[in-house]
């Protein structure tokens, strides 16, 4: 049987879609897990999106802790007997999946971009070497744990007529010795690069923090309103918050249009935006790596190109 879990509802719905496909080819059932208070509405929603069974592990817990969540899932697995486990690949999900794998001596593939059966064995693909290769990993024993990032699979259409079973059970865990003291919101604004349709990004080619307004203005006229950046801008210079950071360790995006201004095109950055629809690069160095990953490129000083491009787009779009 196949089991899916994420502490993020949206990701759970996406996992249910892939999970039900795998369960069907194996002729097995699909379980979704809810950890927390009893939640009938959510259970119903999971069933309407493909779950055959919802296991609501009722626990008294204020916050996510990998140690306790891993123990809960371990106990749920003992009850359900599921052998294929799909977990949403956010930061919580990754450390949870890995700890669980350690406890179960199980195989685990993190950030899978595809999951399928090959020769009847569960097989998962993932990017390695900074996005320069795809490793095809095959499980040779059970259980199998795979984490899947958001937006890799689309959720199934909601079907309110679908029937399923809901199991509720109180689960006790050993209290971990770690304690959460404070949770602070890091979100600076309303930025969500992962959902954006148009992104204009800036990189090391910008000389001052203030100059980022050039990117902002272009994003505004493109009605994309979303500004992204490469690692140096967010991690080293901190001119923009990490919400804007696109790359292997930042956000992975796939907008319809991605414009990279003053970004050299390190493989780590490419790994975060390679799935974009159309990629445009602006760089004064004609040899810049970014042009190899772009559909269209302008060789020129971004301080000259960006204002002109903003005006031209403004005229075109009226």
């Amino acid at each position, binding site marked *: 049987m196949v089991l899916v879990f994420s502490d993020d509802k949206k990701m759970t719905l996406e996992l249910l879609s892939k999970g039900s496909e795998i369960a069907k080819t194996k002729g097995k059932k699909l379980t979704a897990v809810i950890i927390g208070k009893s939640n009938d509405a959510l259970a119903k929603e999971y069933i309407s999106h493909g779950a055959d069974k919802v296991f609501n592990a009722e626990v008294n817990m204020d916050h996510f802790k*990998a*140690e306790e969540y*891993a123990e809960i899932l371990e106990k749920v697995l003992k009850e359900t007997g599921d052998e294929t486990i799909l977990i949403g690949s*956010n*930061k919580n999900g990754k*450390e949870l999946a*890995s*700890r669980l*794998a*350690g*406890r179960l*001596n*199980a*195989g*685990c*593939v993190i950030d899978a971009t595809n999951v399928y059966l090959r020769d009847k064995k569960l097989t998962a*693909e993932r990017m*390695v*070497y*900074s996005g*320069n*290769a*795809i*490793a*095809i*990993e095959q*499980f*040779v024993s059970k259980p199998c744990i795979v984490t899947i990032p958001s937006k890799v699979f689309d959720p199934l259409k909601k079907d309110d007529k679908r029937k399923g079973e809901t199991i509720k059970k109180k689960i006790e865990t050993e209290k971990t*010795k*770690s304690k*959460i*003291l*404070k949770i*602070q*919101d*890091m979100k600076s604004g309303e930025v969500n690069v992962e959902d954006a349709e148009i992104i204009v990004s800036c990189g090391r080619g910008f000389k001052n923090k203030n100059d980022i307004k050039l990117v902002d203005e272009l994003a505004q006229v493109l009605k994309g309103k979303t500004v992204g950046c490469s690692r140096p801008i967010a991690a080293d210079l901190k001119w923009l918050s990490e*919400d804007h950071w696109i790359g*292997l*360790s930042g956000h992975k995006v796939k907008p319809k*249009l991605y414009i990279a201004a003053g970004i050299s095109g390190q493989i780590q950055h*490419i790994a975060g935006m*390679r799935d974009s*629809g*159309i990629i*445009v690069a602006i760089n004064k160095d004609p040899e810049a790596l970014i042009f*190899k*990953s*772009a*559909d*269209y*490129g*302008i*060789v*020129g*000083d971004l301080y000259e*190109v960006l204002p*002109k*491009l903003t005006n*031209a787009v403004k005229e075109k*779009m009226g």
Partner: protein
Amino acid sequence: MKIIVCAKQVVDVSEMKIDPTTKKPILQGVPQKISDIDKNAMEEAIKIKEKNTGKIIVVTVGPTNAKEKIKELLAMGADEGVLVTCPDKYDYHVISSLLAEAIKKIGEYDIVLCGEASIDMFSGQVGPRVAGLLNIPQITYAQSVKAEKDKVTAERNMGDKAVTTESTYPVLITVTKEINEPRLPSLMQILGAASKPINEWTADSLKSGIKPVVETIELKGVPMTRKNILYKDDIDESVGKLVDSLTKEGVLR
């Protein structure tokens, strides 16, 4: 305070070339190094030791030639090294189990420090797996760590949130690249590292007959098919041509 740092020898991804026909990475002949974020873990261990006194042991599961790279960490400030020679076939299960067994063999410890992920594979599995195997608390993605006598407090970077977590010892902590700037050892330190011990343990002596549960059956190339149209003449002309192209692509609306 006894600190164990787990470090991995990896291929230097930035030196890697791609085969133009197969689009696969060429792994042969690529220089090896200690994974960048593991050096951040090492730096953090040194900072903790400087404040609290104690001992730092670095553990690597890898090929025999990893000994040379362990010396770099000894030069930075580790007191002792352990190299567990890696079996021919391995996966995260094998590596984590060997690390956990090596840590148990070392005996008492307060903190196990790891990088959040290695720069070649970037899974981030090893830290939490080892914590699970040792059944100790885990604090992942730490961007600052404050170690005191009876407890450690760390601020975790969870993307949209910063979570401050506290734990008693023993604890496993994984750190991010942003936590610190790893120091460069001085010539004296590099020379001094030669006299620090590196113990070699075989995988079999720690846990015999351990087998992978996941096999990498293929490494595929990632073809990037882009139009690569470059406008490099007059800026005004280039901008005009770009806007026309984007209109035709249907992305301007």
